[in-house]
């Protein structure tokens, strides 16, 4: 082979190899790779031209080279697979809104990675030249999502800054980060769709009620009052404005289908904002709030319970009877409607106990009086008739012949013609009091109908000491009724006190000629009108100087006028009693005379003579069973059977001259006038302070038919038992059970001690000292039974402990006495047996003596 050719070929090969290797060498050794991605970074000289911020400055020999030449030599390291990759930290957070890298990274604030020293001078726009977002491949330590909606919650650190109330606190390395950074990393889960809030097992419960008017979530949920779910412990410190951040109303999602879960309010709300007045205690048949609502206040009711649409949008006639009369000065609905007095419609039985202030919740005035048309606006009076305002009775419109003051309830009398008042015609039915005066105008007031005032009587004209009373002389000889009257008067206290016929009937009792003594000239009155009687009597009995000498009260007339009787009389009702009817007619006796009709034990019969008479009471819609109920009550039995004058009669509670039914709220004071200690205890109780609807004495003990109370009242759910209002498992029910247990145990201990004492007494042992102790125990038991009205089991127990102590001591002594008696009886048997032996011995001796006598062998002993 040709060596030079080989040489040449070898040389050429070497040159080729070298030629091929040079650029490689240059690249490998002399031309630095571009260590960063090139996308968006085409201005190489922007950095490398001046060498700012430690970027490698182009060498001096590169001067004049332009950007487009760089990549001729310098290749991207990523593309140069043979070269090791530079580790450039990715940007671990989204970039949106975060274009000022150096804000954080220049100094490494709030935990951000500080740029290395060789990066000094680099500007924000360079960062992403090297550092790329890592969003595509989310690192395992991805920032937690925001599990709650963001609307209205831009103050992340408000909660998360301090870890308030269990919110996740920002890690220590986040220190210094501000709210505007958070969403840089932390994304709303809802938006990312990663964790749908509703599907999350830890999803916050939705708000099941409307929010309007309920922005104070913690008012209820804070303490868990009234059965609402309490905020969990880890929510402590959270404020109302945070709640809806997590908890969303679910009413939208759970629409009307669930709404009826809260009963609707079936009545109008105007004037009825005290829901609990009625519903709190279940007063009068109103639905009582469930036990889990305890503690809720009036202002939250309507949060759940909405006005029934039927009521809210009612267009037809109201199902509740309208109020057909003006309401001015008539806010005491129950004054008339409770008993149906004066013809007013009586409230239905399921309304009993409802107070005045709720009536208008359902019952609305029919129409304002001012809207009513004057009849005469439309109707023309017949020819020749006078306009009513001229006061004439012509045209068939009678005028009003009496004063109107206190007589404004026209129908009270005129509806049924009470007391002789003209009855309204049939075509006036349903007209109400407020329309009467539209047609009927006040006319001249008849004197006889006017409220009578005390009139001086001729008592001073005919002083009795003259002993001349021709009235009596003559009437007593007339026989029949006249003689009876004379006889009755003669037995009366009036005859005894020199009050004679003429003092009431007028006339001159000194004249013997009837025509003269009974003439108008002699001021003869005759039989006084019933309506005049109270004033006639009052002319003396309301006269303080005159009554002083008899130590009699003088307020009867004033009280009578305020009484139902007096008022009805002033309305023209002639059925009602006056002084004459109750005090025995002409035979007025002193009230403390047992024969007097007003003697305490005679009062029930006196009142019953009218009030138990169905015929008389028919016009008043008043029950007639009061006397029968009273007769069997503890009060009736005590007064009428045992003649115990401490027991009340009708007048004790209703008043005598001022007789009127006491109001429900007054009951405790009425009963307390005798049962003072019990009242004192009651006034300390929750019952006394629970408002109008709370139980009064009559609620548990009855009114007329008050029965002997027993511990049984605490148990059972029947009427007049605690269980009637309080379920046994309620707090109050447990108090009742506690009182029952305490008092029953004490009563039983007392009864056992009493029985033991009786046993000891039966066997003849002295028990007087034990009886004294037993009385002490009984007194304590009586006080404890009164003290149970406080509803405070502890204070009752303090008293029953005394009972228990004394009863135990007495029982032990009584049992010891019985044991002593047994000993005595055994000793007695022994003693009697010994005496029996002696007697037997003596008897044998006697027989021996008699035998000696029979055989004449007996000789008197020789004492000498």
């Amino acid at each position: 082979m040709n060596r030079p050719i080989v040489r040449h070929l070898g040389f050429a090969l070497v040159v080729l190899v070298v030629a091929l290797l040079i650029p490689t060498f240059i690249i490998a050794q002399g031309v630095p790779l571009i260590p960063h991605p090139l996308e968006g970074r085409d201005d190489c000289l922007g950095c490398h031209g001046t060498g700012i911020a430690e970027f490698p400055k182009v060498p001096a020999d590169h001067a004049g080279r332009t950007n487009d030449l760089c990549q001729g030599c310098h290749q991207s390291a990523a593309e140069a697979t043979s070269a090791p990759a530079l580790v450039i930290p990715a940007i671990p957070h989204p970039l949106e809104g975060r274009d000022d890298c150096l804000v954080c990274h220049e100094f490494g604030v709030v935990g951000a990675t500080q740029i290395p020293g060789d990066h000094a001078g680099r500007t924000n726009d360079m960062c992403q030249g090297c550092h790329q977002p890592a969003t595509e491949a989310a690192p395992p330590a991805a920032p937690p999502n925001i599990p709650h909606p963001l609307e209205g919650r831009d103050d992340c650190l408000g909660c998360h800054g301090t870890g308030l109330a269990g919110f996740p606190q920002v890690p220590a390395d986040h220190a210094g980060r501000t709210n505007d950074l958070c969403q840089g990393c932390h994304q709303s889960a809802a938006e990312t769709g990663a964790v749908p809030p509703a599907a999350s097992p830890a999803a916050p419960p939705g708000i099941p009620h409307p929010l309007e008017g309920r922005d104070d979530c913690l008012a209820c949920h804070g303490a868990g009052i009234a059965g609402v779910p309490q905020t969990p412990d880890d929510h402590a410190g959270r404020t109302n404005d945070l709640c809806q951040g997590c908890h969303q109303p679910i009413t939208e999602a759970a629409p009307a289908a669930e709404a009826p879960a809260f009963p609707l309010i079936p009545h109008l709300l105007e004037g009825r904002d005290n829901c609990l007045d009625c519903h709190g205690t279940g007063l009068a048949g109103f639905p009582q709030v469930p036990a889990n609502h305890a503690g809720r206040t009036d202002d939250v009711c309507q949060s759940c319970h909405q006005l029934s649409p039927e009521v809210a949008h009612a267009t037809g006639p109201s199902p509740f009877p309208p109020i057909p009369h003006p309401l001015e000065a008539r806010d005491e609905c129950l004054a008339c409607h409770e008993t149906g007095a004066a013809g007013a419609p009586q409230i239905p039985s399921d309304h009993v106990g409802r107070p005045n202030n709720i009536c208008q919740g359902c019952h609305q005035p029919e129409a304002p009086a001012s809207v009513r048309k004057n009849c005469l606006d439309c109707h023309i009076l017949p020819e020749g008739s006078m306009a009513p305002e001229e006061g004439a009775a012509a045209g068939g419109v009678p005028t009003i012949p009496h004063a109107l003051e206190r007589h404004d309830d026209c129908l009270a009398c005129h509806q049924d013609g009470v007391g002789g008042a003209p009855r309204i015609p049939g075509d006036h039915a349903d007209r109400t009091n407020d329309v009467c005066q539209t047609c009927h105008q006040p006319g001249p007031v008849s004197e006889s109908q006017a409220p009578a005032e005390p009139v001086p009587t001729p008592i001073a004209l005919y002083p009795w000491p003259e002993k001349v009373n021709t009235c009596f002389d003559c009437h007593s000889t007339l026989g029949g009724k006249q003689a009876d009257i004379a006889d009755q008067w003669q037995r009366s206290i009036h005859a005894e006190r020199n009050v004679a016929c003429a003092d009431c009937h007028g006339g001159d009792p000194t004249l013997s000629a009837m025509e003269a003594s009974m003439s108008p000239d002699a001021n003869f009155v005759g039989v006084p009108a019933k309506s005049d009687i109270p004033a006639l009597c009052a002319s003396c009995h309301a006269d303080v100087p005159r009554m002083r000498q008899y130590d009699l009260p003088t307020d009867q007339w004033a009280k009578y006028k305020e009484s139902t009787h007096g008022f009805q009389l002033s309305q023209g009702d002639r059925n009602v009693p006056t002084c004459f009817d109750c005090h025995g007619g002409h035979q007025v006796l002193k009230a403390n005379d047992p024969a007097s009709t007003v003697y305490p034990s005679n009062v029930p019969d006196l009142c019953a003579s009218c009030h138990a008479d169905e015929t008389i009471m028919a016009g008043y819609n008043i029950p007639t069973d009061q006397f029968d109920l009273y007769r069997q009550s503890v009060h009736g039995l005590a007064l009428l059977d045992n003649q115990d004058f401490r027991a009340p009669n009708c007048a004790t509670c209703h008043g005598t001259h001022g007789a009127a039914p006491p109001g429900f709220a007054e009951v405790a004071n009425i009963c307390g006038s005798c049962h003072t200690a019990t009242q004192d205890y009651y006034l300390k109780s929750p019952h006394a302070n629970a408002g109008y609807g709370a139980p009064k004495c009559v609620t548990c003990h009855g009114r007329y038919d008050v029965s002997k109370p027993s511990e049984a009242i605490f148990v059972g759910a029947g009427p007049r038992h605690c269980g009637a209002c309080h379920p046994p498992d309620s707090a109050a029910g447990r108090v009742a059970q506690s009182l029952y247990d305490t008092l029953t145990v004490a009563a039983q201990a007392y009864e056992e001690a009493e029985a033991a004492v009786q046993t000891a007494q039966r066997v003849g042992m002295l028990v007087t000292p034990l009886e004294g102790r037993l009385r002490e125990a009984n007194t304590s038991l009586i006080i404890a039974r009164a003290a149970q009205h406080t509803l405070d089991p502890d204070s009752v127990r303090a008293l029953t402990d005394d009972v228990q102590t004394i009863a135990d001591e007495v029982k032990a002594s009584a049992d010891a006495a019985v044991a002593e008696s047994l000993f005595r009886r055994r000793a007695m048997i022994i003693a009697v047996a010994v005496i029996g032996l002696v007697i037997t011995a003596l008897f044998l001796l006697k027989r021996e003596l008699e035998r000696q006598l029979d055989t004449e062998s007996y000789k008197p002993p020789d004492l000498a």
Partner: protein
Amino acid sequence: MQTQKSIVWRAWGWLDGRYRLTPLISALLHVEIPRSARTYYLGGITLFLFMVQAITGVLLSLYYQPAPSAAYDSVLFIMHQVNFGWLIRSIHAWGANLMILFCILHLLRIFFQGAHKAPREITWAVGVLLLGVTLGFGFTGYLLPWDQRAFWATTVGSEIAGVVPLVGQKLLIFLRSGPEVTARTLSRFFGVHVLVLPATLLTILAVHLTLVHQQGLADPTRPVEPAEGTTSAAGQEKKDLLPFFPTYLLDEVIAWYAMLAILIVLASLFPAGLDEPADPLRTPEHTKPEWYFLFLYEGLKLVPRIVGVTVPLVGGLFLLLLPFIDRSPQRIPRKRPVAITIGVATLAIIIALTIRGWLS
């Protein structure tokens, strides 16, 4: 060989040698009694009950304190603290009632058997006085416990005395030692009960027993008593007589033992009670005197006061002087119909009034 005499006989011989007691004892004991003169033990039991009362009374007086502030408590003390105090007091209380009862039964027996007639007029009168003294014991003793029942029974009882004509009010003040029942009344009643009445009763009883001893027991089978100055044993056959000692006395002692047993039974089964302490300001609902005064109390309610007091007073006087008024010597009951009728009627009235008072 002479038998060695016991120490009792020797002591008796020593005394008898000096004081010649044998005739006295013989005179007291060795009398003979007609077998038909049955007394039904009534007088003897009354005597026995008096002895019981004397013994128990002395025991009670050792503890009893006669002052209102202390009397009740001292009785409570006797009942609860003193050994057998309850028994002593119960026997005393029952003994008092039984003594009055047997006194009355004794009187009735005498009356219906005509034993009060001549020659035993004085014995009868003295016996009636004994009944009066016994009632006085009951009246004064009843107040001593000073409980409600005692206080008010004494109050109403002494009010009966207050309506005696003429001297009533003075008598009442004398009894009560003032217008009201007070501490002075208690003091007075105690003194009378333990000093005046025992002395009086012992004296009168001694007279009564002496008279009985001297005359012997009346024999109801004899229609008419033998001549005055003789004993009942006079003229009797020996077989119809019974030696007082020991036969008759033994019979009595047996009855006394029986009565003692009855007292123990009564005291054990029905011990004396005690009401609440006396309270002059609190009148009990039902106040009545003891049963033996009930007929007086009830009578006062039924008839005018003057009658209600005068009739028993005159009746008592009539009773005292009965043998001098009813001087017929006839003893057989059916031979003296008027006296028996009056007696039965009076007794019936008294029993009726007592029952009525008991039930009221």
